[in-house]
């Protein structure tokens, strides 16, 4: 056991910190071009797709290096990479399952943000139970024709391309009739409508396909193998998240601490109130545990071990922590927590969790409801932990008793 960072890691961190100090754009970025330019700048510095193999434009970076870069990005409150889904999910899928022609065509443009990507998986009636998706892809000889609807598509309005799961065989059990496509979002058969989120922002969309086109060459893997491909642990972006998530909360917690020194309670500062201190103490304790567990995960990744289903434990911990933490924030700040605009500066909110400026406490609170839903809801994570980690018997499922996808 040795939980010290190596001298190389420390030196690497210092270099990365310096780079973000010198290069992080000040002020909010307003245009897509500005966001692409920032993405490109980070790519050129070697910080984007750094876990990808060198032959596809990556750096074969170790999980620890990836974790450090993400962490320093957070510390600098740097805006996130505009093509984050491209580099974290879409690109790695193409690297693992794509053919050489697909790799040549797409990977470079993902890395330098020439083409922005989105993920077209969820549907109105297929979320957790993704395999029951109904969007169809029909073989039209020289191309596939897509009809149906996707929803909750993050970044749908800015995307040039998407990874798409669609049904290609309705006569077999539902998991066996799905294929994995790359689809050009810039075509007449696709309509993207932004959806307003509970935070008031519009990051996800609904996407309608009416006789939309996928070229034959843009099928990934074999026909009807889509489910297996979607299940593969993708992610050359390993280690990212383990440190920076804790740093983001730590920065928020420090801001909250500052507010409790200004906020009046019982004739003194809220910070001197024992109940407030218990909440701060709990927030700090549970955050430190998240940090220790993150180091434990990193240490496994550094040895080349895959995180496996245990990553569900981390997902469950941080996403549920986020909700608890923000409830304490709102309790401590009282009505100031609800204010979106017009609060005195000492009660204005934390840095945005995805970087690039400040947000209101209330928005940060609302945002905390997302992570226990996306990337596998908490209930689904518990099913995974129960069945794949603890080896408990599977629950009785009606859909396993039926044989057809419809």
């Amino acid at each position, binding site marked *: 056991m040795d939980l010290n960072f190596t001298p190389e890691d420390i030196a690497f961190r210092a270099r990365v910190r310096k780079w973000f100090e010198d290069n992080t754009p000040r002020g909010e970025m307003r245009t897509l071009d500005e966001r692409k330019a920032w993405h490109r700048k980070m790519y050129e510095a070697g910080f984007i797709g750094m876990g990808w193999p060198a032959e596809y434009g990556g750096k074969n970076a170790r999980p620890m290096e990836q974790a450090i870069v993400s962490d320093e990005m957070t510390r600098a409150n740097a805006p996130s990479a505009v093509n984050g889904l491209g580099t974290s999910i879409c690109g790695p899928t193409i690297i693992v399952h794509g053919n050489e022609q697909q790799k040549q065509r797409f990977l470079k443009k993902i890395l330098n943000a020439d083409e922005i990507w989105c993920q077209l998986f969820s549907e109105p009636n297929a979320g957790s139970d993704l395999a029951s998706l109904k969007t169809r892809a029909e073989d039209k000889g020289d191309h596939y024709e897509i009809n149906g609807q996707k929803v909750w598509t993050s970044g749908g309005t800015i995307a040039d391309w998407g990874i798409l799961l669609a049904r290609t065989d309705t006569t077999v059990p539902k998991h066996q009739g799905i294929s994995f496509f790359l689809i050009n979002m810039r075509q007449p058969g696709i309509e993207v409508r932004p959806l307003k989120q509970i935070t008031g922002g519009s990051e996800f969309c609904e996407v309608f396909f009416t006789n939309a086109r996928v070229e034959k060459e843009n099928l990934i893997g074999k026909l009807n193998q889509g489910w297996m491909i979607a299940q593969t642990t993708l992610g050359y972006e390993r280690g990212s998240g383990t440190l920076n998530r804790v740093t983001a909360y730590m920065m928020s917690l420090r801001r909250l601490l500052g507010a409790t020194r200004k906020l009046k309670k019982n004739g003194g500062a809220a*910070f001197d109130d024992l109940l407030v*201190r218990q909440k701060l*103490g709990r927030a*700090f*304790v549970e955050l430190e545990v998240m940090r220790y567990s993150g180091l434990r995960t990193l240490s496994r990744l550094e040895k080349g071990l895959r995180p496996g289903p245990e990553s569900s434990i981390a997902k469950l911990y941080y996403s549920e922590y986020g909700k608890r933490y923000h409830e304490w924030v709102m309790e401590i700040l009282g009505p100031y927590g609800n204010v979106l605009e017009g609060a005195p500066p000492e009660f204005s909110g934390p840095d945005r969790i995805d970087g690039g400026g400040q947000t209101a406490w209330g928005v940060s609170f609302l945002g905390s409801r997302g992570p226990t839903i996306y990337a596998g809801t908490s*209930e689904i994570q518990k099913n995974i932990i*129960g069945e794949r980690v*603890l080896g408990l018997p599977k629950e*009785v499922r009606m859909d396993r008793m039926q044989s057809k996808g419809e």
Partner: protein
Amino acid sequence: MDFDFTQEQAALRDSARDYLSQKCTTQFVRTMFEDPTGFSKPMWKEMAGLGWLGLTFPEENDGLGLGMVELALMLEEMGRAVFPGPYFASVLLAGGAIKAAGDKSQKQKYLGGIASGDVIATMGMLEDAPNWDAEGIALNAQAGGGGFVLNGMKRFVPFAQAADVMLIPARTSKNADPGKGISLFLVEAKGKGVESSPMKNIDLTNKASEVRFNNVMVPEENVVGEIDNGWHVVQKVLQQAAVGASAEMLGAARKSMEMSVEYAKMREAFGQKLGQFQAIKHKLADMLVDVESSHSAVYYAAWAQDAQSADAALAASVAKAYVGDAARKVCGEAIQVHGGIGFTWDFDLHLWFKRAKFYEPMFGDAEYHRELAARALAG
């Protein structure tokens, strides 16, 4: 960065688990319920032979020279086995204080004695207020007669009935700062003026006593460390005790979880295994999250002690606060998952539930350590 145990550490854990699962069966544990000293002398001697009683003592004092990580591994196994006996009291508490502040001859005599199993030591901290701060220490020590005269009372003294010697923090002078004026004394447990009466716990494997000191003479040579300057030693021991108690609670929690998982795979109700019901499956998943997070907290804190890292005190508080809550939840939910059988005396599950509960308030409860964490946050 390496969060895994070394081969030696893993081997120590395996041998502890092997030994305890053979010798310290729950059948044996139950025979200690009504035993006044609460431990088996032959087993104690065997553990001395394995080197465990001097695990963390210097080699020149017949110890193995290992650190807090190894001690935490040992204590986790003891929690898992609900080991009955004065290991925590003798090795971690009293041994820890003597190791930290004792002089050469004290170390030789007491650490050597503890390591060989010939001396059983304990430490008395709490008095009538269950207060882990320096204000809690009121027991009076007056200079006189070539030494000191102790008058007062300690409660919750672990395994006082089994002990030969007790390490007693007492007040040698009154100051505005309660942390000043505390000195540490080694007191013969069966000496003149020392009276112990048992305080029976819900955890029947953890003995404790109220100990009264009536004009107890302690010779000068039994002062550990400097006069009036003993509190920092107690603080250090309390930190390690917080980590050690967390390790025991972790052992109890993991065992309770494993038993629950096995039970849920086997027991049927409504034509299904219990583990197929999400109400049970999700409970067990939550238990695993608590147990694995507790593992991270315990071993980070133990490592921080050994590495003397800047956040060692904070990490001890984090572990005690987090694991205290987690073990309470996990051991309690284990009983829930077992239904009626979990509420019986003959089924073993309550042993771990009680072990975890025993350590919850000891060395500061979760609330106390959250307060310390809040202070650390504020810097």
